[in-house]
């Protein structure tokens, strides 16, 4: 890291942030109650982010053999030199900083778990089958990581963590499926059997579903589908997305964007948080950022560049992503404030409507307006007279995300961590009751 930093500084670059991640991960995938493949990855990846006079460049190097850092630095500087003047000049956060240890994000046992992943898969399969599933598919993954950051502005620090998670999908019939998730940084908080019970139980109850009917419904969203929507909300609360013109929160800072019952924050330092880390990729300490408080949009996630542009405070959210922008503001652990209700109270509050457990394939018609649709996946149930009723199928939520946020009527006390294939950011969310949600179906 020092070599890269020196090479860039020698070439006259004002701001340099070098990060290095060493990770080891293992994954067991299973389907039809049987393991299909076991994966193991071992990676060492440096990333470099440069800025001078508002011009920026970035590089990700997953290549050790024959890499000449001098020539990479030189190529990056050349690429900056041909960029016309940037729109805003900025500096990286001035260090040094004190990075406090975060409790509960490293468990040595997870670095040695190895064949334990097969045990976890087996536990999930068995519990889902006991609940009534015929077939069980899923993925269990564990990993450990160490992350180092060194910047030209005097920031230097590191963080390390472990994680383990399982997604279980149970099939009780062709159309009767359910999903369960357990995600943790610590082996004691990891419960693959409970994930199997949840998946198997939803699948069993979803048997015999009839085609749903389009219309407007009071909907109780389960944690998995609500986490997906919250992820989209956090994307839109990134200053970078706002600048791209792809946010439904453009020009809404300080304004009411949701029901006052809804509050959302990102917390990169949460003890036991699956996404927690001590410092961001610009070397700034991570922290808690209130995005929406009692319905009001309080702030955007920022990097040094966007903060200079928006004249805002840093949020410790800089993450190297490469691709379009190099360094972007992105969430670590999304936390939805819980409500005061039990799940049954939400059903009672809905009186007549739908309970949707999961979804996939969310797509926007227009990112600025927030018009979107997403497909209901796994168990969907009618709510009749305030109680769970028959399963239904073939439904799609077709609505506007701001309208959904503004129509939140109640949230449960109990929350669940969600992260899976469709929800990349760890999200802690309750069940949520939303009024008058648009539901559509397909013509056959």
């Amino acid at each position, binding site marked *: 890291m020092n070599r890269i930093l020196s090479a860039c500084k020698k070439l006259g670059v004002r701001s340099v942030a070098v990060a290095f991640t060493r990770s080891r991960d293992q994954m067991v995938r299973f389907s039809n109650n049987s393991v299909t493949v076991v994966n193991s990855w*071992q990676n*060492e990846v440096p990333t470099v982010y440069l800025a001078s006079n508002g011009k920026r460049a970035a590089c990700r190097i997953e290549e050790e053999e024959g890499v000449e850092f001098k020539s990479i630095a030189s190529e990056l500087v050349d690429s900056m030199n*041909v960029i016309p003047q*940037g729109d805003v000049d900025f500096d990286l956060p001035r260090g040094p900083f004190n990075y406090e240890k975060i409790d509960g994000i490293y468990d040595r046992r997870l670095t040695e778990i190895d064949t334990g992943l097969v045990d976890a898969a087996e536990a999930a399969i068995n519990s889902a089958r006991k609940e009534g599933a015929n077939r069980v598919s899923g993925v269990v993954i564990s990993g450990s990581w160490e992350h180092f950051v060194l910047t030209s502005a005097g920031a230097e620090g590191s963080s390390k963590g472990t994680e383990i998670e399982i997604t279980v999908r149970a099939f009780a019939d062709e159309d009767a499926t359910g999903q369960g998730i357990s995600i943790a940084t610590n082996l004691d908080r990891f419960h693959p059997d409970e994930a199997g019970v949840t998946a198997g139980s939803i699948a069993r109850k979803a048997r015999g579903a009839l085609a749903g009917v389009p219309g407007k419904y009071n909907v109780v969203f389960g944690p998995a589908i609500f986490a997906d929507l919250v992820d989209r909300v956090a994307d839109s609360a990134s200053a970078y997305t706002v600048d791209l013109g792809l946010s439904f929160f453009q020009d809404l800072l300080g304004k009411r964007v949701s029901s006052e019952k809804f509050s959302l924050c990102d917390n990169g330092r949460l003890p036991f948080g699956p996404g927690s880390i001590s410092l961001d990729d610009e070397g700034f300490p991570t922290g808690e950022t209130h995005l929406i408080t009692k319905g009001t949009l309080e702030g955007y996630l920022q990097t040094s560049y966007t903060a200079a542009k928006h004249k805002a405070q840093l949020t410790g959210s800089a993450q190297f992503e490469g691709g379009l922008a190099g360094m972007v503001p992105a969430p670590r652990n999304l936390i939805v404030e819980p409500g005061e209700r039990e799940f049954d109270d939400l059903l009672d509050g809905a009186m007549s409507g739908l309970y949707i457990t999961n979804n996939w394939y969310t797509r926007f018609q227009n*990112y600025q307006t927030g018009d979107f649709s997403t497909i209901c996946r796994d168990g969907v149930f009618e709510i009749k007279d305030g109680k769970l009723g028959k399963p239904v199928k073939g439904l799609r939520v077709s609505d506007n995300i701001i309208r959904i946020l503004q129509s939140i009527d109640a949230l449960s006390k109990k929350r669940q961590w969600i992260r899976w*294939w469709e929800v990349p950011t760890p999200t802690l969310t309750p069940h949520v009751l939303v009024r008058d949600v648009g539901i*559509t179906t397909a013509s056959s």
Partner: protein
Amino acid sequence: MEILEDETRLAVEQALKSGAEYVEARAQRDVGHTLTLNNGVAEPVTTTRRLGVGIRVIVDGSMGFASTNNLESSQIRTSAETAVRIAKAAVRLISAPSKLAPERSWEDKWEARMKIDIQQVSIKEKFDELFSIERALSFDHVKVSLPSRILVLDDELTEKFYRNSEGSKLQGFVPRISLFFILTGEEKGKGTIQRMRHEAQTRGWEAVKEWNASAIATDEAMMLGRMLRDGVHPPRDEIDLVLGSEVTGIICHESCGHPQEADRILGREGAQAGESYVKRDMLGKRIGSEHVTIIDDPTLPDSYGFYQYDDEGVKARPRTLIKDGVISDLLHNRETAAEFGVSSNAAARSVAYDREPLIRMANTYMKPGEYTLDELVEDVKSGVYMKSFMEWNIDDRRYNQRYVGLEAYAIRKGEIGAPVRNPILEVTTPGLYGRVDAVGKLVEYSGATCGKGDPQQGAAVWTGGPPIRIRKIHVGG
């Protein structure tokens, strides 16, 4: 890449020594650049360099995969041993052992054409291209306000060296280049409208020169203006629908290509990308009208999904997935081919050294028919021509799908008329293919990045086809 012959040999030898029955090792180097203009301001030029080895083994019917980007001999050996060890550990929870269908072994070198080496084109020249598009999007030129303009130029050179324990040794080279843009049009009192477009090929810089991207972007921007100013609600009765090439292409990809991936049919993607409405016994079953023939072909010259050998060393060939409305083939790798008792049709693809090969599409399109667009429209009394789309999705069995039209026009008495806003086609797969009564003759392709796998692998593909006509359907919006 010759240098990595030794590393792949070492990986194969070590895995065999450790007890593997079958081994393949793939060294892959990717070097890419992404240049972005955001409302005329340059985002950072990002460079990506990846080089490593992925090793896949079968031991006692259990499949293991390990990868590393540390190419020291000791680390390659450790990774090979790891692949075998983790596969062995899973044997007790395997009820359906992995087997591979027999295949011929190949020794070959292949490469896609690149007349102008992308690496020899300066960053300045690449930015010049983006700035010329940006200039073409000025209000004076396109007559519509575009408050957001995102232009992305992406290139990547991929070199692979593949070797397996059955004697295959393959060296491949693929240059890919793409231009992606998102434009937001705005008109006072009419709101905003957004358009995404993706031009992409397996070629060198010459592709960019031929696309004439400024003209494409100009046309798209002016279209946004038309839709905003003049668009009205679509008719709500049962009508006929003419779908443009872009819409035909996404339909072929989503509701033919994906459900006919044999790994989904076997349930292998059950917890992530999902399964399929197509079952093992549906080969030979009618799913659409006789006008519907859909092909997936990795060998199309210059196509974004081009390859000559897949990542299991099988020689690529076209696959006819639906022929005259009947399900006629599936996309197979060697593992699913063994399960179905057929040969692989070379659909195994991996996007990087650290990703296992999965069944993927390449370039999926509907076979052209005989009609011009005018002929498709001329006997439609009341309908909509949906030329392009913005929002789309489909359920995880690939049965219930939705496409929201972006550029769309009413059809009245055989003629294309006024713009209509956001017509919605929400239909089942047989409901859609069964209603196709005429197919156009001009095929066009769009670039796309197809997501599948865990961790996600975004594969370069083309989606394409001619305009098609479907009869008597309810359109929402």
